[in-house]
């Protein structure tokens, strides 16, 4: 059952991701990206990471996509204003990305995944477990990331606030 679920989700993810890249209209790209995010959230649920799935939906599909949509609408992207890359750079980037893809697939295929001792718990991805981990082992990164957000917050105010004359 979960295999079929996984396959359906995986195929949907790939199709929507390809649609993001191949859509001519940036608005469709953004909408396909939302589909892509939902299917990835589905993968998280299958991996028993409910908390991550919800956060993913709220942050990415919710906040970030709205931001993307606004940016696309404000920028008024169309074929005329879009910068055109030369064929040479297109071919070069296709070759580079293709080679990287091949190496990536090959190295992951060649890796014999070791036996990981997964803890025999069903609630591993729940808020409670994540919270316990965050406030014990990962206390310092958790607290330090507040500096990161603070800095970003000051920065956005600094860059966006209306100047007093």
């Amino acid at each position, binding site marked *: 059952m979960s295999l079929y679920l996984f396959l359906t989700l995986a195929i949907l993810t790939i199709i929507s991701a390809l649609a993001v890249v191949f859509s001519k209209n940036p608005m469709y790209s953004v909408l396909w990206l939302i589909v892509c995010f939902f299917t990835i959230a589905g993968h998280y649920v299958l991996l028993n990471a409910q908390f991550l799935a919800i956060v993913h939906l709220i942050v990415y599909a919710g906040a970030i996509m709205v931001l993307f949509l606004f940016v696309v609408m404000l920028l008024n992207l169309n074929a005329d204003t879009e910068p055109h890359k030369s064929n040479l750079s297109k071919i070069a980037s296709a070759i580079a990305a293709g080679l990287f893809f091949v190496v990536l697939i090959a190295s992951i295929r060649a890796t014999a995944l070791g036996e990981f001792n997964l803890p025999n718990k069903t609630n591993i991805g729940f808020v409670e477990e994540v919270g316990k981990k965050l406030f014990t082992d990962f206390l310092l990164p958790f607290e330090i990331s507040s500096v990161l957000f603070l800095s970003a917050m*000051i920065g956005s105010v*600094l860059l966006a606030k209306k100047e007093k004359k």
Partner: protein
Amino acid sequence: MTTLLYTTCLGLFCMLAEVLNLRKLLIPAVILGLSAIFVVNMQQWGITTPASIGSVSLSHMVKMDNFAIAFSGLAIVISILIFVLAANYYKDDQNHISDYLSIMVFVLCGALVMFSYNNMAMLFLGIEILSISLYIMAGSRRFDTRSNESGMKYFLMGAFASGFLLFGIALIYGASGTFELEGITKYIAAGEVAPMFYLGVTLLLFAMLFKVSAVPFHFWSPDVYEGAPALITAFMSTLVKVAAFAALYRLFSHCLGGTMYYVEPLLIIVTGATIIVGNVTALSQINVKRILAYSGIAHAGYMLLGVLSSQTNAASSVFFYAAAYAIATVGLFALAIMTFKSNFSENVDAFNGLAKKNPVAAALISIFMLSLAGIPPFAGFLGKYYIFSEAIRNGYVTLTLFAVINSIIAVYYYLKVIIAMYSQPANDKPMVVHPTYMVVAIICAAATIGLTLVPDMLMQILK
């Protein structure tokens, strides 16, 4: 750990100072605070108590070893010098002074994390705190399109590099099952290293090479340096470069040393390319900030030699080199900012005839330029000497010879500014001298000469 804690508090203080209307006192307070933090930092020297908050042990996250303390000390000294410059630089921008200062203190926080990380999660956070604060500072001149371009370019490229960094860490975690540096070292030592792990190491290395602006990941650096406000350029080319290098060095000396045989060919090619591209491209530049950006790329190449030698504890050499480079660059920028402001130009011809207008400034600039070029008796020479001898000891003779030849090429563009100062006719724009810039420059010059008097002491500290 305490260093990081106090620095964060100082950043918060800067942020809140605006509310309390303490703008006038802010810069002296920050300088005083950083000096106190420097003392606190140095008091931890040699003490190896594991980091903790209350009863929660943090030793798997940060490790304040002597390496971290030495580099933290250097970073704090550089920051103090930059903040002294900020007093005059932001004189006419008092509205935003507390924002600027708090973001710059947060950059220092990021750097401190990058010196002491003992966990991939901390490495990532350190780099992100540093970078995101810098994207903002690079674009902080909102009404200057070049500053906007600089911030935007840095942000897009940096975000891309962060993607590589995260992907690399994820693959390393996938193969080894741990984020901790010691755990990863054990995994490598156990012998059965998965191919996926090597891919992770490569991606991680790419991201780090981007941060140190090594060729071929250097394209952002001249544009970003040119567009950013001059003080921020000084900050980026000193503190940030030192932080990125210390993080890269720590990665190989504390964690990925076992994969050195694998990354060695890649690192050798990158080192050679960085040295030659940096030096040769700098020859044709006329903007002083761009010259310094390319010179920074070339210096990154020399410091990569130190990373290549990381398996025989080249930490002292890298520290000495980083200190010599950073101090000379801060001093140079102090005088360059003054010259830029007086001439309303950032090109080499702004320095024309400076020797007649202000002989002291011209002499100081010459000292810094010669130190960067690696000419004795200045600290830059000894730094190069130590790095090169470390590299030869590790068998990189050809690469070192190549680096020596290139550092001779480098003399040309450093001398270009000196020649402009001494043999070009002066223009009619008066040189506006401000004491804070001169004080910083004199301190840096004293340090540039002073470092050469105690090299043995500095070379022993990280053994």
